[in-house]
């Protein structure tokens, strides 16, 4: 069965959605991603949607769900690279996805994740292994 690959980079998971997703594929991604977060103890999830030509209410809801589920599993989610036309349409549709963090591209998305995860560690006085290379 068709699946969207999930890459792991230290404590972070990276997903690039490149295909025109049908609903089942979106749900599979949601399952795979939550399983993987729990599996590897990921602290951050980055979803790159720069090649998506549309985001309808179903995909929007899936993204929001992933972010909420990740939060429960103690991971931050950032969605990056939404195209202007897609954003305008999504707003017109009535979805503003208030719970989702966004960034312009993978680079600034990674920056955000590193900042928040490090802040959180400082607060908790975390001393586990570090994701720095």
């Amino acid at each position, binding site marked *: 069965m068709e699946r969207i690959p999930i890459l792991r980079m230290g404590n972070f998971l990276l997903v690039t959605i490149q295909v025109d997703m049908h609903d089942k594929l979106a749900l599979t991604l949601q399952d795979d991603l939550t399983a993987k977060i729990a599996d590897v103890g990921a602290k951050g999830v980055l979803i790159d949607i720069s090649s998506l030509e549309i985001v309808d209410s179903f995909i929007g809801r899936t993204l929001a769900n992933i972010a909420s589920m990740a939060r429960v599993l103690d991971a931050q989610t950032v969605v990056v690279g939404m195209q*202007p036309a897609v954003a*305008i349409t999504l707003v017109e549709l009535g979805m*503003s*996805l208030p719970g989702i963090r*966004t960034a*312009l591209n993978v680079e600034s998305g990674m920056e955000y994740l590193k900042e928040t995860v490090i802040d959180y560690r400082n607060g908790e006085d975390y001393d586990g292994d570090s994701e720095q290379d």
Partner: protein
Amino acid sequence: MANVLDVVRRNQESLLQEWLEGIKGGIRRRDLIDDRELKSQAAEVLTMICDAPGEAALDNLNSPPWQPLKDLLASLSTTRAVQGFTPSETAMFILSLKGPIFGLALKLHKNDVDLLFSEITAVDDFIDKLALHTTDSYIHGRDQVIVRQQEEMLELSTPVVTLWDGIVALPLIGTLDSARTQIVMESLLQAIVQTNSRFAIIDITGVPTVDTLVAQHLLKTITAARLMGAECIISGIRPQIAQTIVHLGINLEDVITKAKLSDAFRLALERSGRSVTRNSKSNGPVLSGAREQ
């Protein structure tokens, strides 16, 4: 039985001369078109009337045989609209054909008043319809000019400027209608992606009024920018606009607003981890000549 069209065919040359005299009398701005061009246009129209196939009846301008003539007149009228002729000058071109044809009809049916009357009525009706057709085409030509100018204006009115690495600004000037706001907003979002800017300042100092629809567009743009990962700051809200916004019940609570563009710029700099400091020695602008003193 001879009818007017046959006579027109036989006297094409002299008719053209008479018609041209009439046309020239009706045009005030003679500099817009030269005589040679006018003559060739008139000759072409007349030839088309004369060469119309036998089944072409004067009382049915919508029949296929007349289509080439209508197309020719339409293109002539559209060109005239662009050249700057008035609508009446454009209509006079074809209306001037009435006199000469009536003259021919009179010679032909001198002794039969009834026939003369019916022939003249038919020609009169035919030419009036052609004149209305030229007026319609003229207005269509004008509309096209207006549409083109509107598009050009919209392009001119959307200058997205980069203030700093990662900070763009859109200074809006003039009244915002819904169509313009939409285009302005699209180009702002496009610029955010192209320049990879995390902050966008929309300055509305030059906007006299904001209505509900425009305010909604502004809010939608801000939400869309946030979905893309950029933050918008609105600056330069005038007191009257602030009042309107509150009266209309538009909720700007989630939007960052600043009084001046400079305040918005400073905030964007701070949020992107930069700060503005004053160098203690410089106390304002120094004219180049005064430096040595």
